[in-house]
C-alpha cells in the first residue's frame, strides 16, 4: 500500500558505466544497494513509495549493444534499452512477431511506453506484466551479463515470486532473444482491466498456436496467464490437452477449464479470486478462438 509515498525521489547516485563489465562489477560490489536502470517506470515509483532504497542506479540503456533491436534470419533480439514504443514501431516486429507488438500496445500509455522496456518488464517480474506472457509463449531467452560474462537462460523458471527473479548481484539482462517462429503461427493477447485501455491487468491471457505434426492434434498451443498467480504462469495441462485433442470449440472450452483450474488468484484491491478464475476461463476460450481464426484464415 502506497500510503507513505514521498513527494519526490530519495537521494541516490546515477551511475553510467562505460561497459557491461564495469556495470556488472559495480553492481556486484554494491550488491543490495545498486540496481540496473532501464526505463525506470517501475523503479522510480517504488523509490518514491519508500519501498526501494537503492543508493545507486546504474544506467544500462546504452551499453555494448543494449540499445540495439535486430530482426533477421537468426530471429529477433531486443536490447534491454529498447523502448516498447520502438518495438511497436518496428515493421519487422509487427510482421514477424505480431503478438509481441500486440502485448506492448496494451501497456499503460504512449508516454510510459516511450520509457518502458520489455526487459524491464521481465526483470520487474510482476505477475501482471503485460509483455511477459508473449515472451513466454514465443520462447524468449534472456541474454544475461554477469561478473563472469555472458550466459543465456530460458524464461521458464526465471520468475520465482511476485517481483522476484533468479538474477544474482552483478547480473544485467542485456537482451531478450526470440528464435524465428514456426511458419503460420498466430497469437492473441487479451487483457482485462478496469478501464477499456491502459490500467494494470486484472487478468491477462496470452494464447499462441502453430501447426506441429509431432502433436496428435496437429497443433501446439501455448497459454500464459497474468495476474492470477504469484508469477506469470503457463497453463501446462491445458497446453498438453490441446496437443492431444483436435482444435474445436469443445476442446477450447475444456482447455479453458483446465487453465482456470491451474491458476491461483487472490483477492486484492483490483479484483477477487472468484472473478479472476472465471475470467481466465472466459478469456482463454476467447483467446484460443481468436488465435484459431488467425491460424485458419
Amino acid at each position, binding site marked *: 500500500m502506497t500510503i507513505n509515498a514521498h513527494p519526490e525521489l530519495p537521494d541516490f547516485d546515477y551511475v553510467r558505466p562505460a561497459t557491461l563489465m564495469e556495470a556488472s562489477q559495480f553492481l556486484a560490489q554494491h550488491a543490495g544497494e545498486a540496481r540496473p536502470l532501464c526505463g525506470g517506470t517501475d523503479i522510480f515509483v517504488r523509490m518514491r513509495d519508500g519501498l526501494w532504497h537503492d543508493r545507486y542506479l546504474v544506467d544500462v540503456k546504452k551499453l555494448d549493444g543494449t540499445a540495439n533491436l535486430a530482426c533477421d534470419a537468426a530471429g529477433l533480439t531486443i536490447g534491454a534499452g529498447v523502448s516498447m514504443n520502438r518495438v511497436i514501431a518496428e515493421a519487422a516486429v509487427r510482421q514477424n512477431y505480431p503478438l509481441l507488438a500486440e502485448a506492448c500496445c496494451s501497456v*499503460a500509455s504512449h508516454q510510459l511506453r516511450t520509457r518502458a522496456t520489455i526487459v524491464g518488464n521481465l526483470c520487474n517480474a510482476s505477475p501482471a506484466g503485460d509483455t511477459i506472457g508473449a515472451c513466454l509463449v514465443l520462447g524468449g531467452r534472456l541474454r544475461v551479463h554477469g561478473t563472469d560474462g555472458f550466459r543465456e537462460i530460458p524464461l521458464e523458471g526465471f520468475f520465482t515470486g511476485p517481483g522476484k527473479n533468479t538474477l544474482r548481484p552483478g547480473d544485467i539482462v542485456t537482451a531478450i532473444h526470440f528464435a524465428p517462429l514456426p511458419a503460420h503461427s498466430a497469437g492473441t493477447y487479451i487483457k482485462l482491466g478496469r478501464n477499456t485501455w491502459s490500467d494494470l491487468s486484472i487478468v491477462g491471457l496470452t494464447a499462441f498456436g502453430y501447426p506441429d505434426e509431432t502433436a496428435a492434434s496437429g497443433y501446439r498451443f501455448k497459454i500464459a496467464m497474468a495476474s492470477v498467480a504469484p508469477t506469470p504462469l503457463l497453463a501446462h495441462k491445458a497446453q498438453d490437452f490441446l496437443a492431444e485433442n483436435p482444435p474445436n470449440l469443445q476442446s477450447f472450452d475444456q482447455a479453458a477449464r483446465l487453465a482456470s483450474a491451474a491458476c491461483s488468484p487472490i483477492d486484492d484491491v483490483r479484483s477477487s479470486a472468484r472473478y479472476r478464475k472465471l475470467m481466465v476461463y472466459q478469456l482463454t476460450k476467447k483467446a484460443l478462438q481468436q488465435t484459431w481464426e488467425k491460424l485458419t484464415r
Partner: protein
Amino acid sequence: MALHHITLTVNGEFEQVDVPSQMTLLQMLRDKLALTGTKNGCNAGECGACTVMVDGEAVNSCMVLAVECQGANVVTVEGLAKDGVLDPVQQAIINHGGVQCGFCTPGMLISARALLNRNPEPSEDDIRAALVGNLCRCTGYVRIIEAVQEAAKRQKALN
C-alpha cells in the same frame, strides 16, 4: 551526492544545468528553468500532466531523470507556438471548447502534437490511444478528441 552538469536544448534554446541524480526532468524544467507550463499531477507516471517531448517522443517528464537528458532535444508546451502563431492543436482545442481548468491542457497538447508528428492522419482510436495517458477531469475528453481531429485536417490542408 554529486551534481551532474548537463547540456540540452529546450524549446530550441541551449541550456546548461547542474542537477542532482534524483532530480526528474519535470523538476528541472519547473524549478531550474522556470518553465512552469508543464505540470505535476501525480509524480508517478499516471496522469500525463507532465508530458513533454524528448527527442520527438512524448514522455512523462516525472519518469525521466534530468541527468538522462544530456544532449536531448526537449519540447514543452511553451515551445509549441512559433513566433506567436499557435500550433494547430492549440488553436483547435480553443475552437472546440476543450479547455476548462487548463491543468491537463499542456500535457494533452504535447501528446497530440507528438501523435500528429508520427501519424498525421490518425483514426479516432489512434487519438484515444495517444491520449489515454492524459487524464482530464473537467471536459469529458470528447471536445479534445474532436480538436485533434480538426488539427489533423488543418495540417493536411496546409501541406
